[in-house]
């Protein structure tokens, strides 16, 4: 399954970054496909990007909401939130494990042999703060004299934007190099920090700072495709703890908001206590959970 997942990650990387003419045009793709939402974190200013980044688009819409309303345009983000919510309700953070280019980048870095460090669990809550403040509230309320908000997360933090758009555009367009300032060095530092951290820790950005992952995580209990635990089969061997790239203790919190449904725990579980379900129904070919009620009744009789 891990082999399949890698291929799906590569496929999504190519689908969301399929414009390979950029070395010739030295610009970004400007075709109609950019009206499609990229499910993972993929900067739309990346020269190869063929879809829009939901976080970037949402911040842009929220930042320009006053101006749009003044002009009689009700661009309040329904289209982008609708796309993000539909994806979240369907698969939730499975996107992080299967379709996010920046997640793939971190996974590949983590394959470099090194000592490994865990992440202090309270750090995982930073991403919810970033989602609320940097993606929603600041673009909406911290406005300039023209009533325009800024794309706070993209501007000050997003390492995916620096990697996929900032650095390639600086290479492609020499005129941009003169515009490099403190802002860029700040973002470059954040990119380098997460890059180095990814070598020693699994998916540090996903776990601590990704607002898109935080948003998808809100759907962990209700998403259509999810992993389920059969507690009666679990012998608490904790095999699922050690293999999880997100540091989730699956048998203790099966609906954990950080679960990316990569299926590593399902494979590691020797008692087949973890299986994939769609809308409450087990996927064909998956281990069937036990039915404790029936068994318990037999014992009591």
């Amino acid at each position, binding site marked *: 399954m891990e082999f399949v997942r890698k291929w799906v990650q590569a496929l999504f990387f190519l689908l969301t970054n399929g414009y390979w003419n950029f070395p010739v045009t030295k*610009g970004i793709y400007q075709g109609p496909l950019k009206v499609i939402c990229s499910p993972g974190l993929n900067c739309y200013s990346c020269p190869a990007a063929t879809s829009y980044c939901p976080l970037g688009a949402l911040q842009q*819409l929220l930042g320009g909401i006053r101006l749009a309303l003044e002009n009689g345009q009700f661009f309040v983000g329904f289209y982008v939130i609708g*796309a993000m919510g539909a994806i979240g309700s369907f698969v939730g953070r499975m996107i992080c494990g299967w379709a996010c280019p920046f997640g793939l980048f971190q996974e590949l870095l983590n394959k470099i042999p090194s000592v490994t460090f865990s992440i202090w669990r309270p750090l995982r809550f930073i991403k919810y703060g970033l989602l609320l403040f940097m993606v929603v509230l600041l673009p909406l309320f911290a406005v300039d004299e023209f009533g325009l908000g800024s794309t706070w997360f993209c501007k000050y933090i997003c390492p995916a934007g620096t990697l996929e758009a900032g650095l390639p*555009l600086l290479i492609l367009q020499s005129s941009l190099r003169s515009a490099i300032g403190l802002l860029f060095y700040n973002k470059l530092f954040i990119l380098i920090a997460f890059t180095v951290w990814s070598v020693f820790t699994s998916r540090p950005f996903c776990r601590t700072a990704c607002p898109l992952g935080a948003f998808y995580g809100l759907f962990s209990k209700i*998403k259509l495709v999810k992993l389920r635990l059969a507690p009666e089969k679990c012998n608490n061997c904790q095999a699922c703890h050690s293999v999880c790239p997100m540091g989730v203790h699956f048998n203790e919190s099966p609906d954990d908001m950080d679960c990316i449904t990569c299926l590593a725990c399902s494979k590691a579980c020797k008692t087949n206590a973890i299986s994939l379900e769609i809308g409450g129904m087990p996927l064909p070919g998956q281990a069937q959970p036990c039915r404790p009620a029936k068994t318990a009744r037999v014992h009591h009789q």
Partner: protein
Amino acid sequence: MTKRSPEKKIRKAPFVAIFIFLVFGAIGISLGEPSRVLEQATQICLSCIGIG
């Protein structure tokens, strides 16, 4: 009286959520948001990528 096993129940919540967000998307389309998103996405956002 036999009880239906909880494992066989189809969860309705994901379908309701998907439907609600698809309605959101449809409202956005009817308001013309995709053209605004496309306009933004086809321009290089310099401040977004830390340049300028």
